């Protein structure tokens, strides 16, 4: 079984770069949204990077993922074009979805990214379908549903655990428990335990530290290998935390006064990653600093080009409703 600590230097640099890209992307969107430059709703993934990257490092284009309304991180981790994503969030014609989807519907099916989703809990059934495709056509692919603690209470998710089991699908349900469904704590809203729910449906289950890239990477390797080899579906539950509110503009009055500051100081997945790789001398600080600088420049460039890009024209309003009509 692959272990995160056995990753090559190059692979570790890729993992770090993806996590850093997600962080800078989200920080920048936060800044730009606050400045009034971005329309609509955005939900930021900063703080949860270890989950998306820890899983998606194992995947290729034949594998599918479904995301949540908090979908930027999963999209970047699965290989969506970052500049195209930024343009999409700005509603530009050359955005990843032509400016028709926006933050909540970023998708790129060619990369196996089945979309962020505006409907909480909608991803799990879709992933059963993607897993069915892989199984029926024999592609060897797997399908992963990222779902929050909020979405975990939807019937769709629980029905999908059952369907994945009875159809014996190469599916994995990753419950990203960031502690809050909107403003309501998962300690209140979730009855029983997430892992016990999985066991109740006969899924293989794992509990993992969602702040630790290496722990996630190792559990992901096991679950994905199980799915690829015909061993059936799994559920992975992890505790993690978001640095921002449910949506941008959320004053987060439901959180403790020092909660986010403490998170950033003690449980930041990027900091934990840096400590781990520099302590073991696999990478040095300068390697990571170089990535930090390069990513900062890349994201700045994405914002600048998004602002300069053209808006869709009126003639784009009615295209793409159907393949043919």
């Amino acid at each position, binding site marked *: 079984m692959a272990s995160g600590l056995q990753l090559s230097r190059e692979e570790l640099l890729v993992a770090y770069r993806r996590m850093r890209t997600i962080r800078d992307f989200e920080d920048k969107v936060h800044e730009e949204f606050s400045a009034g430059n971005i329309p609509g709703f955005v939900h930021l993934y900063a703080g949860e990077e270890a989950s998306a990257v820890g899983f998606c490092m194992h995947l290729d284009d034949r594998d*599918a993922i*479904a995301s949540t309304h908090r979908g930027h991180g999963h999209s970047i981790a699965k290989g969506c074009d970052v500049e195209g994503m930024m343009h999409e969030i700005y509603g530009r014609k050359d*955005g*990843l*979805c*032509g*400016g*028709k*989807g926006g933050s909540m*519907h970023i*998708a*790129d*099916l*060619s990369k*196996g990214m*089945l*979309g962020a*989703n*505006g*409907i909480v809990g*909608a991803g*799990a*059934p*879709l*992933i*059963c*379908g*993607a897993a*069915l*495709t*892989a199984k*029926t*056509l024999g592609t060897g692919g797997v*399908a992963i549903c990222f779902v929050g603690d909020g979405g975990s209470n939807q*019937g*769709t998710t629980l*029905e*999908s655990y*059952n*369907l994945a089991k*009875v*159809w014996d699908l190469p599916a994995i349900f990753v419950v990203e428990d960031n502690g809050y469904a909107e403003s309501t704590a998962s300690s209140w809203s979730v009855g029983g335990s997430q892992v016990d729910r999985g066991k109740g449906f006969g899924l293989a289950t794992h509990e993992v530290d969602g702040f630790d890239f290496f722990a996630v990477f190792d559990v992901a390797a096991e679950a994905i290998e199980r799915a690829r080899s015909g061993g059936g579906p799994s559920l992975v539950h992890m505790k993690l935390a978001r640095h921002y509110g449910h949506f941008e503009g959320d004053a987060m009055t439901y959180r403790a006064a020092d909660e986010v500051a403490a998170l950033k100081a003690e449980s930041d997945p990027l900091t934990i990653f840096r400590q781990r790789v520099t302590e073991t001398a696999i990478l040095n600080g300068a390697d990571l600093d170089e990535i930090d600088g390069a990513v900062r420049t890349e994201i700045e460039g994405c914002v600048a080009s998004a602002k300069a890009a053209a808006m869709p024209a009126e003639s784009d309003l009615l*295209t*793409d*409703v*159907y*393949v*043919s*009509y």
Partner: protein
Amino acid sequence: MSNKSYRQAIAEALTQEMRRDHRVVIMGEDIAGGLGAPGEDDAWGGPLGVTKGLMAEFGRERVLDTPISESAFIGAAAGAAATGLRPVAELMFVDFMGVCFDQIFNQAAKFRYMFGGKAVTPMVVRTMYGAGFRAASQHSQCLYPLFTHIPGLKVALPSNAYEAKGLLTQAIRDDDPVIFFEHKAMYDMEMEVPDEPYAIAFGEANVTREGDDVTIIAFGRMVNLANEAADNLAKNGVTCTVVDPRTTSPLDRETILETAAETGRVVVVDEAHPRCSMASDIAGLVAQEAFGELKAPIKLVTAPHAPVPFSPALEDIYIPSVAKIEAAVTEIVEYGEKAAAE
């Protein structure tokens, strides 16, 4: 060419398309049936036997029984369609849409638009509709207007066995999500249906009768009632054009408006409730686009704004009838005559 029932026509379309394209799979509750049970395999072949025998040819890998779990398997059909299969999911009764509508209208219907034209979602939802089976309020509705309302969905309403095979073949070959409505009272209706595969294009209405006095636009099973009414009326010298739009989305506006203009009198026959229905939609279309051609008010023959009742005594008067269609036609013909006399 041989006589086939509506049920056989649907099964034949499924069989031929599954042979033609290995990506076509079918799924649904009891679509084969008997899975895991001690008795017969393929015990039901769907609740009314439409898919009986398909499992024997295509195996459990392509004939997928599901738990009673519409949210999950209709959503799975959407996900499978977006990733390369061409699933045909059976939603046993359209009344059950309440537990899986999100997967249809927020997911499958919108992928293409939301994802900037990059998604293709070739899924079909086959579903039973319609009253007349003493099945009461939750198993008898005609909910096609709700699906017709949603951009991104196509909606087909085959009115007989020939139409059923051709429209289902088109639905399966179509790259957009299609909701395919099967009227439960038509499964045993027989007619000549070609043995060879064929597809009927969506959005092209079928003019089943041609007349001079009134244009009747009818949907699904109501087309047969409208034809019968037209034949009866013809004996008394009142001739009707009957239009079967075949699909409510896309809608053949051109044929509806042309035939409405030719007679100047329009009756719409719709088994659904009258509010926000196909009947009101067609009336709105004709009033907007062909007002100057009308010689009489547009008449709607629909079910009432009430749930479908259980008691046979009530259900029989609930459903639009040949007599009601004839009365509506006669009323607007006389309206024209009165106006001419004044």
